């Protein structure tokens, strides 16, 4: 599989090695983040006129799901402002590597503990995402709730940075980072080392321990061992610390990580189910015609909401994986496969990664294009206080490209289905000879077809 190292472009390499461009983008993003929190807390409770809602759940979400994740994987993580304040306290510096840690007063608060071994997985991220998902109808529409959730992210990130070493929040807790990691396997970009023997011979491992040029990998990843994008935050610290210029930022084919048999885990498998299930539920609740479903999802704390929450959990953690398990078992039976069933269940769940991303893109297309025009008044009057900063406060709501949305959604969903089926066949081919792999993958492909049909009905109609 051919790859092209983007760092061969001198200007790009210079820009990524320098700390300033990344710092400036992150700092400005931090300013925007604080602004969004303040808008949510102080501004109008009308979501469509509040900067907090419009910029986070329309503009940022569009950028993330339609551009950043599909093309740059964890690209967003490299400029995410949430860990910035915590890292400042943890490292003592905000720009240059502070190898000595914080000085003076703050030193006593920085414990620098290792993240517990039992939680070195993404189960907590799965739980965090599910928790947010259960309240999402309220979070997505009420500025104050959005502000509280965003502020909560910041507080937890700061607290985690004080107690644990490196970016433990990003790696093990952030609900957004969890699914970005999963879907980053599909991106046509990757950060890898050029030559693993160079890393093996390099005894100091400054990419992990840090140097005067940069921090040791904040994501607790040894770049020499990287084979997938999932846990690489593309923070570019290793590019700065590697004394052998052994880091590459490759352009590659889409979804290259899915073809790697190693490193498949149950927590990641469940992340795929949670994401796929959430996309289906959101499509039904937010875009569907069922008023009772909307009322139940909005009525946080009520009995109908409790029923909705239980149904959500049962669907995501029981029904979806349950039927998938049956599909995998059926494929194993008809192909006379000998791999352990649980291992196959985990392996095949990676076929749901492209389908899940397609579902989220299709879902996002529906409301992002429809509601994007809310951006203009929110820019001019971010708090709904009657300002008109850039003269766009009076711009009315105008849905964009509504005629093409269903076709785009159908195209994306069908593409996701095809990609999922091909991935399933490829996974089957890892252990079975030609012919057998099709029989084994067939029930999984049928499962994907069923899910795609459901999404088509919900999203396209």
């Amino acid at each position: 599989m051919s790859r092209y190292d983007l760092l061969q472009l001198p200007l790009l390499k210079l820009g990524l090695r320098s700390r300033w461009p990344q710092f400036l983008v992150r700092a400005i993003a931090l300013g925007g983040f604080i602004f969004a929190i303040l808008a949510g807390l102080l501004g109008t409770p009308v979501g469509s006129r509040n900067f907090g809602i419009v910029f986070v759940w329309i503009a940022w979400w569009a950028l993330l799901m339609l551009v950043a994740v599909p093309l740059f994987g964890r690209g967003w993580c490299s400029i995410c402002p949430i860990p910035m304040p915590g890292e400042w306290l943890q490292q003592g510096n905000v720009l240059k590597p502070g190898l000595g840690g914080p000085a003076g007063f703050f030193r006593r608060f920085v414990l620098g503990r290792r993240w517990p071994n039992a939680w070195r997985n993404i189960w907590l991220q799965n739980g965090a995402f599910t928790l947010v998902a259960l309240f999402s109808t309220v979070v997505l529409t009420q500025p104050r709730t959005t502000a509280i959730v965003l502020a909560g992210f910041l507080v937890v990130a700061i607290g985690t940075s004080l107690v644990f070493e490196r970016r433990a929040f990003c790696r093990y807790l952030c609900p957004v980072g969890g699914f970005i990691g999963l879907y980053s396997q599909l991106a046509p970009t990757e950060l890898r080392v050029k030559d693993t023997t160079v890393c093996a011979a390099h005894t100091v491992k400054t990419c992990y321990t840090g140097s005067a040029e940069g921090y040791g990998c904040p994501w607790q990843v040894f770049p020499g061992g990287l084979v997938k994008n999932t846990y690489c935050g593309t923070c570019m610290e290793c590019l700065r610390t590697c004394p052998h210029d052994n880091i590459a930022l490759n352009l590659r084919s889409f979804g290259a990580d899915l073809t790697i048999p190693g490193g498949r885990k149950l927590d990641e498998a469940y992340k795929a189910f949670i994401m796929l299930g959430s996309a289906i539920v959101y499509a039904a609740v937010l875009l569907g015609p069922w008023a009772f479903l909307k009322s139940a999802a909005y009525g946080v704390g009520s009995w109908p909401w409790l029923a909705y929450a239980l149904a959500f959990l049962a669907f995501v953690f029981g029904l979806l994986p349950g039927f998938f398990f049956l599909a995998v078992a059926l494929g194993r039976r008809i192909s006379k496969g000998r791999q352990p069933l649980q291992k196959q269940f985990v392996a095949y769940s990676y076929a749901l990664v492209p389908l899940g991303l397609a579902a989220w893109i299709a879902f996002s297309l529906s409301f992002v294009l429809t509601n994007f025009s809310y951006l203009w008044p929110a820019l001019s009057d971010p708090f709904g206080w009657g300002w008109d900063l850039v003269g766009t406060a009076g711009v009315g709501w105008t849905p964009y490209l509504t005629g093409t949305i269903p076709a785009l959604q159908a195209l994306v969903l069908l593409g996701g289905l095809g990609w999922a089926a091909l991935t399933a066949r490829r996974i089957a081919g890892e252990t079975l000879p030609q012919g057998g792999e099709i029989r084994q993958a067939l029930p999984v492909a049928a499962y994907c077809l069923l899910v795609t049909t459901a999404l088509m009905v919900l999203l396209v109609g």
Partner: protein
Amino acid sequence: MNAERTARLFVLGLLIGIPLSILLARWIAPGAAAGRPVEIHARMPEAGGWSPADLSISVGVPLHLRLVSDDVVHSFAVGQSDQPAIDIYPGEVVETTLIFDRPGKYVYYCTRWCGPNHWRMRGTIEVLGETGEPQAEGPPLFSTLGIDIDVPHPADVVPTRRPSARRGADLGIHIPEKYLSLDYLRRTSPAGAWQDLRAEPFSQDLNDEQVWDLVALVWKLNTNPQAIQTGQQLFAQNCAACHRYLSGRSG
């Protein structure tokens, strides 16, 4: 200044500067120089209605209002005022200035169907003035008459056809004087009048629809063409948005 210090100052500037500038901008919001406007938030009555609901101002002093809806479309209208109702769209700010030339207590209210309790959405503006100045009309009639308009007034029998004053007159029944006073009309709902008329000896042989025709006759006898025309205008202006306005004058 080294790079690290510059970066720290930049971040601190953002962290402190953004909230500070927002608060300052809010503090010196438009209108501050000319007397700070009163911001009235409109919410569905279940969520609080008008906030603040009670205002006061002196005669002749401009009352600058910033009207904001926090949920659905509302409309702002002041009783005993010629000013047309002002629509308030969610999250948008509408400004208006009122000047009252007579003291008194004015009711302001929502004229848009904003929820099941829309008609409860009322507030008051107390206009203070020198003693001896002509007073504005007093509080609303329902208030002075002691009518609890929040209590349901279900009809015992709902007419299946539109009641007709002409059919009522054709019945040839002499309507007693007590039904022909303005006071009776103001205190009694049509359903109440139907109950009263139903209990009269002269209506014993009438069916329920005919009694409703008598109710229509009572209303007709208590009015005149000019009052009907005024009522139609008021209805079109204040009520038709929710209660439909048809050429047949049903509402």
